[in-house]
């Protein structure tokens, strides 16, 4: 698109224009074709689209599984009045659970490493949820273990409802029921490759399963940090982590490892070329998607941009490492 050809109306209208409840605004996120950051890298007949999950009301892709897990808990009676929603989270799921808890008037307690970004802590507090901090040196696996210990003090299971995003099939199911069909429709069935970074693996598992059922030759690609020691907040290096119960590596066609530096640099390029400020997991996903796209002659590659970049302005992605408070 040249600078004179500004469209008069958006090509895709995200979600309904009027809703009775904030939870009705979850999902139906827009798909944006990336034409500038891909220029000179991707062959002409290959299209790359990003699904902008930051448009969810909680600001990330996690609204989908959080809502689905809570609906499932209510349906089973595991979540009922008097109980508190509790889970361990690196941030976005926590924000989603806090938002949904506020909307449904359920108390929420979240276990997270104490070094999660200030923005996350403040957003969660704004929704009225309580944060329980775990040892930052033990990362998100430390939060998982602390949450298990808290629940061990409630052996009857009468105080808490734990969505358990790492092991709850309602997590991938949310993507099977919503993200997958949306992408199928938004690409008119032309998608050839789906790329998503792995946190719990819910997105890639659920969306992947739906797309494979529509057309078995659609390639499902997962992106993960290249090392246990990385700076890609929200993503998991499977070989060195507590592996989620919902993760089935045999359902992936390909796995791509991305370095922290490459993902950060991509975040800056996306902002400067596309006018889109996203988080580091989106940078990692695009590094992976471009590795896939550049090898093709033609095709339609769809990737997930999990959230917006404002949520990380206080983190190493943007501050502190040049000595003058900005990035180099």
């Amino acid at each position, binding site marked *: 698109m040249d600078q004179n050809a500004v469209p008069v109306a958006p090509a895709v209208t995200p979600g309904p224009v009027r809703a009775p409840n904030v939870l009705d605004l979850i999902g139906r996120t827009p798909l944006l074709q990336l034409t500038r950051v891909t220029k000179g890298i991707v062959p002409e007949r290959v299209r790359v689209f990003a699904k902008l999950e930051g448009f969810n009301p909680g600001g990330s892709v996690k609204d989908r599984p959080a809502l689905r897990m809570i609906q499932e808990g209510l349906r089973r009676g595991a979540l009922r009045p008097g109980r508190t929603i509790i889970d361990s989270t690196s941030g976005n*799921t926590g924000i989603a659970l806090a938002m949904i808890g506020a909307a449904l008037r359920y108390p929420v307690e979240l276990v997270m*490493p104490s070094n999660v970004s200030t923005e996350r802590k403040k957003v969660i507090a704004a929704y009225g949820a309580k944060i329980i901090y775990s040892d930052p040196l033990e990362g998100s696996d430390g939060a998982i273990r602390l949450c298990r210990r808290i629940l061990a003090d409630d052996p009857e299971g009468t105080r808490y409802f734990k969505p358990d995003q790492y092991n709850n099939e309602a997590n991938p199911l949310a993507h099977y029921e919503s993200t997958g069909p949306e992408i199928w429709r938004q690409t008119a069935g032309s998608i050839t490759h789906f790329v998503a970074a792995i946190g719990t693996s819910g997105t890639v598992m659920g969306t992947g399963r739906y797309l494979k059922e529509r057309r078995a030759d659609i390639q499902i690609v997962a992106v993960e940090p290249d090392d246990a020691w990385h*700076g890609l907040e*929200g993503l998991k290096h499977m070989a060195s982590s507590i592996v989620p119960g919902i993760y089935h590596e045999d359902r992936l066609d390909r796995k791509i490892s991305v370095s922290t530096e490459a993902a950060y640099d991509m975040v800056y390029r996306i902002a400067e070329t596309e006018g889109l400020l996203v988080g580091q997991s989106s940078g990692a996903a695009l590094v992976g998607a471009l590795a896939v796209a550049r090898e093709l002659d033609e095709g339609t590659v769809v990737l997930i941009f999990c959230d917006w970049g404002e949520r990380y302005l206080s983190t190493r992605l943007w501050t502190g490492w040049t000595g003058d408070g900005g990035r180099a």
Partner: protein
Amino acid sequence: MPIQIRVPTPLRKFTNGAESVTVDATTVGALLDQLDKLHPGIKERICDDNGRVRRFVNIYVNGDDIRFLQNLESPLKSGDEVSIVPAIAGG
């Protein structure tokens, strides 16, 4: 001066699983050099080829980020505790 270093889980493969290591040093930079002498290879994970702390790595002296102190020149005194803190993974 003995300084205690708290080692995060992903780097404990260098320290034979130890959660903390004590070394003698007067600055954070010297502390990392000492740590690497005891546990070869660990500094390369914390600093890049130019010797600067990697962009995504956080080092704290008694809870204060060294980027807001004097980076690798940040002074240390007996009894200080240095933490090397990773990013947060997984949903």
